[in-house]
């Protein structure tokens, strides 16, 4: 690696420095736009007691679900979980802690975390279990709760294309939480389908500027579909 070249050649190198007890922010919505290979690398590294911040927790045997197999996750911060039997089993057994967070609040927590904003007020969750114990403040006659932002030791991100300097673009709705996670990791690792030379991507079309990105790796992706729905003709 030299200068702004952030390309690494192996997944071991991509996740070097990951330790027990760390917090990982992961991009993806359902199985769409998830960093499949980086997740698999977290699994094979064998680290434990992880806090994972991600909208969902994959399914049995795929995506973040694989980290449940060897009980590597201590806590999940998510808006919607439980599509997998193993998740339910570990939750009911008290082996897994879950902090359910409204989807928009979760996105904003990452955005704010990456932007150096420690907390923000939102009306989302006021008067519900999510608001319990949180500071309430009134603005223009409406009540808002104070939500703290999130940063991670690592952010693992799935992009479509990146240049070697770490400028990333996402494809279609595989964008979702990825650019937000990318801003909020102490070490942000992006795996992409294609790495190009600097200058090949239109600077005005970059979703994640390279300043947020520490490591880039090219991967091969299964891209499993959760709900294949089609129309005839």
């Amino acid at each position, binding site marked *: 690696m030299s200068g702004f070249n952030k390309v690494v050649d192996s997944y071991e190198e991509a996740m070097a420095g990951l330790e027990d007890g760390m917090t990982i922010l992961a991009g993806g919505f359902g199985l769409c736009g998830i960093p499949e290979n980086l997740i698999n690398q977290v699994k094979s590294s064998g680290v434990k007691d992880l806090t994972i911040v991600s909208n969902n927790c994959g399914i049995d045997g795929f995506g973040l679900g694989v980290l449940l197999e060897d009980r590597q996750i201590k806590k999940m911060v998510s808006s919607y979980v439980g599509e997998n039997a193993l998740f339910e089993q570990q939750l009911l057994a008290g082996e897994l802690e879950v902090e359910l967070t409204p989807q928009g609040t979760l*996105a904003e927590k990452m955005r704010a975390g990456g932007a150096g904003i420690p907390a923000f007020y939102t009306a989302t969750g006021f008067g519900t279990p999510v608001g319990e114990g949180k500071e309430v403040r009134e603005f223009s006659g409406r009540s808002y709760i104070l939500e703290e932002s999130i940063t991670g030791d690592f952010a693992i991100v799935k992009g479509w294309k990146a240049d070697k300097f770490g400028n990333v673009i996402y494809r279609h709705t595989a*964008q979702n939480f990825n650019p937000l996670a990318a801003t909020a990791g102490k070490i942000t690792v992006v795996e992409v389908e294609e790495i190009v030379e600097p200058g090949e991507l239109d600077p005005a079309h970059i979703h994640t500027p390279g300043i947020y990105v520490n490591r880039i790796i090219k991967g091969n992706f299964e891209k499993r579909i959760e709900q294949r729905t089609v129309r005839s003709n």
Partner: protein
Amino acid sequence: MALSREQIAIRVARELQDGFYVNLGIGIPTLVANYVPDNIEVMLQSENGLLGMGPFPTDDAVDADMINAGKQTVTAATGASIFSSAESFAMIRGGHVDLTVLGAFEVDVLGNIASWMIPNKLIKGMGGAMDLVAGADNIIVTMTHASKHGDSKLLNKCSLPLTGAGCIKKVLTDLAFLEIANGAFILKERAPGVSIEEIMDKTEGKLIVPDFVPEIEF
């Protein structure tokens, strides 16, 4: 006769206006997309980051990178835009979506809604529902009026943990279309052949019944 799922969707679709940006929840609300009147244009917002959701793809056009908030494969409509989850919820929280349609377990006379959690059962999460009800001014809740055992779901006070407080003004059930104002449900329309007595019987919350309550026509 109680309204069918399709009839509920048809009635909701009459609330659509030309140029509306609309977020449709999972279940019956999704069906509303099938009944958009021919003479108007609406754009569907999907909270995973798509404004301008098109129909399902044909088999050869399925793309794993193109899904809706229900995780179904979809297409982008002409003039669509795609963005991050933070941008998506800025639209929702910022009140830029013209109409939100979503389901519920319970609603009450104060406009509270409970739709995400039944204590002592597995809790999967609220997804985007709390942001949607907190951010939208114009919300229609679609739900069944009472449980299979006949217990009302239109209450004086929600018994389940809330999704949002004081945010619901319109409810369409299988029996009636109601508005919520001044601490009461106001009966606006009833399903064809459903008596006012039956609706009164199945509404636990304070109910105001005007002199004339038209039947919904199909």
